[in-house]
């Protein structure tokens, strides 16, 4: 698949080089990836992907504007109103501590999205850096990094995550949750980036760069990384969905974000005990929030993958 892809890229590059002014052509080897306009057009032609993007933007907008639209203080108690069903005063009802569920859900989006996003930043940075080193240098660096991924991948991720979160859980649960998700998730990305680097580094433009005396850092950063970027972006989108799901699972088990800080996961954990009394709204709404953001990121990731590389298209 890789060789086919690069053939397509090479061809498109050759076509582009002829049309470009000389200065552009000179640095065009760093722009082997498909044309940006074309990718965007393909992405925006995909209705499901656009719907995913819209939902993602909406969720982040809500998180940013949370204090403005939460209507109520998420920690404020409403005496005598334990686990009340949705009403005009409390759109999504109240929880077992009489707090407004809507306000907690809105503020919870800040926590859940920022934990997920930061964790993905950590994991993509680690994964890309280690994958790049392994792929470019090979030898013992490669062996060391790849054997480490083997070890980490031999433990089911959720198990490792639960163990690390439980053992390190401290007062600062937010930071621990982020770091634990970030540091247990990088191996897959490292392998992916390594594979990309391996298939790219024997191509002519890299040999050319090396011949004119480019340093390894320059080759990795200026030439290899931009060409692997498309794959990295798709991977990051998919991981955003998964990281939010992981945070929710951890917090649901009581091992992630700790109450009173609201996160969708710990709201589910709290709502669970009220299920027997029929308080479905405490379980349904936080779950729907997790479901929609995960769905949206997955649709977006799929759309991006198809747009960047139509050859891999599923449909």
């Amino acid at each position, binding site marked *: 698949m890789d060789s086919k892809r690069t053939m397509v890229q090479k061809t498109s590059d050759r076509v582009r080089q002829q049309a470009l002014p000389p200065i552009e052509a000179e640095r065009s080897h760093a722009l082997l990836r498909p044309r940006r306009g074309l990718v965007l057009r393909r992405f925006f032609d995909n209705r499901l992907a656009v719907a995913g993007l819209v939902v993602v933007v909406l969720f982040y907008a809500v998180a940013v504007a949370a204090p403005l639209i939460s209507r109520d203080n998420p920690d404020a108690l409403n005496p005598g109103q334990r686990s009340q069903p949705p009403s005009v005063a409390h759109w999504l009802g109240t929880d077992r501590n009489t707090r407004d569920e809507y306000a907690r859900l809105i503020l919870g989006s800040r926590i859940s999205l920022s934990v997920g996003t930061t964790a993905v930043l950590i994991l993509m940075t680690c994964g890309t850096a280690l994958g790049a080193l392994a792929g470019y240098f090979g030898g013992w660096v490669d062996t060391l990094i790849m054997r480490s991924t083997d*070890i980490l991948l031999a433990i089911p991720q959720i198990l490792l995550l639960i*163990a690390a979160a439980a053992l390190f859980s401290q007062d600062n649960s937010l930071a621990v949750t982020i770091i634990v998700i970030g540091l247990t998730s990088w191996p897959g990305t490292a392998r992916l980036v390594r594979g990309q680097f391996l298939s790219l580094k024997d191509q002519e433009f890299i040999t050319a760069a090396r011949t004119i005396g480019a340093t390894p850092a320059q080759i990795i950063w200026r030439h290899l990384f931009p060409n692997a970027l498309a794959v990295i972006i798709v991977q990051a989108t998919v991981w955003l969905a998964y990281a939010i799901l992981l945070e929710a699972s951890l917090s649901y088990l009581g091992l992630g974000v700790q109450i009173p800080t609201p996160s969708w996961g710990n709201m589910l954990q709290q709502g669970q005990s009220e299920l027997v009394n029929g308080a479905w709204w405490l379980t349904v709404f936080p779950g729907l929030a997790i479901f929609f953001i*995960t769905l949206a990121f997955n649709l977006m990731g799929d759309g991006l993958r198809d747009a960047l590389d139509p050859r891999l298209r599923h449909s």
Partner: protein
Amino acid sequence: MSSLGAYILRRLLLTIPLLFGLSLFMFVLIHLAPGDPVRAFVSQPGVDPSFIAQARHNLGLDQPLPVQYARYVGHLLRGDFGTAYTFNSTPVLTLIKARVGATILLQGVSLALALLIAIPLGILSATRQYSFLDNTTTIGSFIGLAIPNFWLALLLQLYLSVKLGWLPTISTGEATAPLPGRIRYFVMPVIVLAFPSVAYFVRFMRSAMLEVLRQDYMTSARAKGLSPRVVLYRHGLRNALVPMITVTGLQLAQILGGAVIIEQIFAWPGLGQLVYQAITQRDYPVILGVTEISGAFVIVVSILIDVLYVVVDPRISLAQQATARG
């Protein structure tokens, strides 16, 4: 010895350093963490400090870490996984043996069901691309992949148990009930485990089938005058199933992870529940034992996949497999 045999032997030998690395990694992780297992199971305040010190000494926790690790590995090499700190000081291996069956049964049923649904559905989707069925399957698989499994479990418990009273909420008594009665306990956990797997499998099955349908050998088989059924099943399906081996293997590798949360929710007496309890109680030998055994399982599965690949698809050589793994 055949090259395949040599290959398997080489891969099996390579698992030994891997399992050592795994045990070292888990050991360091556990001991880096703040907190103390003795404090975790002697939770009453005002316990005599000398008693705590004695307990730590008995468990060997007062030794330097390298000594503790060397001792652990020494026992491990003799097949001794040690004794649990909690769980009435039962040997770890006994605990695992008592629990592993429940997990294998639940996960096996779920995985088999998921494959039985996903493979035909994927074929139908691919042969009727963009039909109503295909679109529904695509949407359904996106839903299945996005739905948090613990949330699905809660919703099922709410609806099927609390509201309708059809099924028991959790699996208490699962181990003793006779088989027909036991099925009731399986329904909800199996749905929860199988739904995302179906979603995952069906997408791969569909795209693998679409890829195969485009191949030249399919056209030539049709041109030879073979019936569409024969072309589809004898020529198409057999090739489309090859990538499913990888996907199934990847899913197998994550089994224990999924088991932890689901067994917790449904009180399923399996390995997932065991390791979760061990983690919360800081029962080091149990955590190490379960991760070591599950690691061995994952590695063996990955070897099996690579071997199966070569056996099933003669176009793939062992050398290719070796370079692809890196």
